[in-house]
């Protein structure tokens, strides 16, 4: 599958590029080592909780830049509750689709936006910090896309077992032996889970 014209348009002329001074909320997700990183800054009206302004910066490929552009368009002028409902599938649809191997870009962009909003809610007493549990791990695994299909590994029923005890997360994933994305998925699970301060080690068995 190729990039849609809409992806190319947003890639070549992205909307809302930059960094807001004194933002009310901000988040950075991904890492240069992984090849994509996105930073989002927001201005939020404290009375209405409407996103007055939003900007993003991107280190990443064409679809990373295009998804940053589309989700900032989608969030602009919305309340934070509305913006929280933007899904990675919705963002990909708004770009007339993404190749399956690029779906993770949409997940990263949407996740960054949600992290920024969550931070804002906690700081303004609108939400409490969620307690960490096995469900948190499952939710995090839903952000990991199997690049061959462009769907997350939980929905695809690739996750066979999730365990969490004494700071160690144990994940059992079912991926065929000669699958070219096998190592990639395993690495991504480790990276995602070990970013939690509650998790000392993530053991992934395939």
């Amino acid at each position, binding site marked *: 599958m190729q990039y849609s014209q809409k992806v*190319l348009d947003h*890639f*070549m002329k992205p909307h809302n590029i930059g960094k807001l001074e004194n933002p009310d909320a901000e988040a950075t997700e991904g890492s240069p080592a*992984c*090849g994509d990183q996105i*930073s989002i800054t927001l201005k939020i009206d404290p009375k209405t909780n409407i996103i007055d302004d939003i900007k993003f910066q991107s280190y990443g490929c064409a679809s990373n*830049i295009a998804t940053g552009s589309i989700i900032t368009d989608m969030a602009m002028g919305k309340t934070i509750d509305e913006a929280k409902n933007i899904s990675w599938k919705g963002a990909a649809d708004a770009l007339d689709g993404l190749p399956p*191997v690029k779906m993770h870009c949409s997940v990263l962009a949407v996740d960054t936006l949600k992290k920024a909003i969550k931070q804002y809610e906690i700081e303004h007493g609108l939400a409490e910090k969620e307690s960490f549990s096995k469900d948190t791990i499952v939710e995090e695994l839903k952000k990991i896309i199997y690049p061959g299909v462009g769907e997350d590994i939980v929905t695809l029923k690739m996750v066979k077992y999730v365990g969490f005890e004494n700071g160690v997360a144990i994940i059992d994933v079912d991926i065929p032996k000669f699958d070219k994305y096998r190592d*990639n998925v395993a690495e991504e699970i480790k990276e995602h889970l070990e970013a939690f301060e509650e998790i000392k080690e993530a053991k992934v068995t395939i």
Partner: protein
Amino acid sequence: MERIYFNNCLTSKPAPEVVKITTEYMKNKYYFPENFNAMGTEASDNLERAIKIIADSMGANSKEVHFTSGGTAANNLAIKGYLTANSNKGTHIICSVIDYPDILTNAAFFEKSGFEVTYLQADNEGFIDLVQLKNSIREDTILFMTTLGNHTVGTIQPIKEIREILDNSEHKIAMHVDACEAYARIPINVNELGIDLMSISAHKIHGPQGIGALYQRKGITLGQVQHGVNRMDNLQTGGMNIASIAGFAKAVELAFNNFEENMAKIRKLSDYLLNKIESTIPDTLLNGPRGVKRTPHNINISFDYIEGEAIMMMMDIVGVSISTGSACASQGLKPNYVLMALGRSHEQSHSSMKFTFSRYNTIEEIDYTVEKLAEVVKELRSRSPLYN
């Protein structure tokens, strides 16, 4: 404007002369050199002429050249053929971590079948570790394999020195080189370099796709890899690609008729590009060695703070084809393994761009490319959280 093509290491445009002769063979000279009738005799003469052109280009004898369906088929025939025929002499083989996938995947295959493999490390310019090579040789070492001109960074391995090291051993160690990148780009004489097996490919030198050749030194035994009807010899079973063989020979003739002139032109293009990038775009890093120690057609360079697929896509939109070592553009979403083995960071690998030239490229194309590249790099850096 016509598209500017700098992906000649992936595949190159067939020369008009190659297209002409290949078409002519498909139309009128498609016969196999099967028997002594008029068509068979003509086919046999033509085939012999083609083999001789290719053999001469590397200082080989016609009997030492076998046609294959490409570089990968030649590598498979060399490695599988040699190891199956010689495993009674030993089961240890040596290659390096930066070799072409054909070598690495074959090494892994034989490792699973009971062979032992030593993977040599490379320095930060892509030269394999010769001290490690010396120390790795054992009584049961039977084959050394290398990529003569590295497919990613163009590093030319010191084959003569390697041959001397192998010859210091008390027993014969065969040397197989994958020369698909280096052939017709640097002078290669199999006798002077002491090469035993060498694979080459037509489509990387303006020949047809789907045809390659294996040089097999006289006295080096290969086991049969593909069994079937024996038309040429038992290493080339099945039907022959007569038209492509004719096109391959024509491509070799064109490359070697003006070899030094062509190479000087391509070297000049590479130097010009590198110079121009380094003098106009800040924060870049050349991957691989500088100057004559790399194949003349290859420039690989990293651009700090930005990612390669985005550079590639933007350059594509302005009509320039180049490639990247970024994970985002790779099949398995991994950063380029050669650059990682050379000690480059993930970021430097993700931002690496590879330009591979041919004699059809021009200085004007490079002027346009660097002008656009400078704009693209500036634009992407302005969007990057790492730059601001």
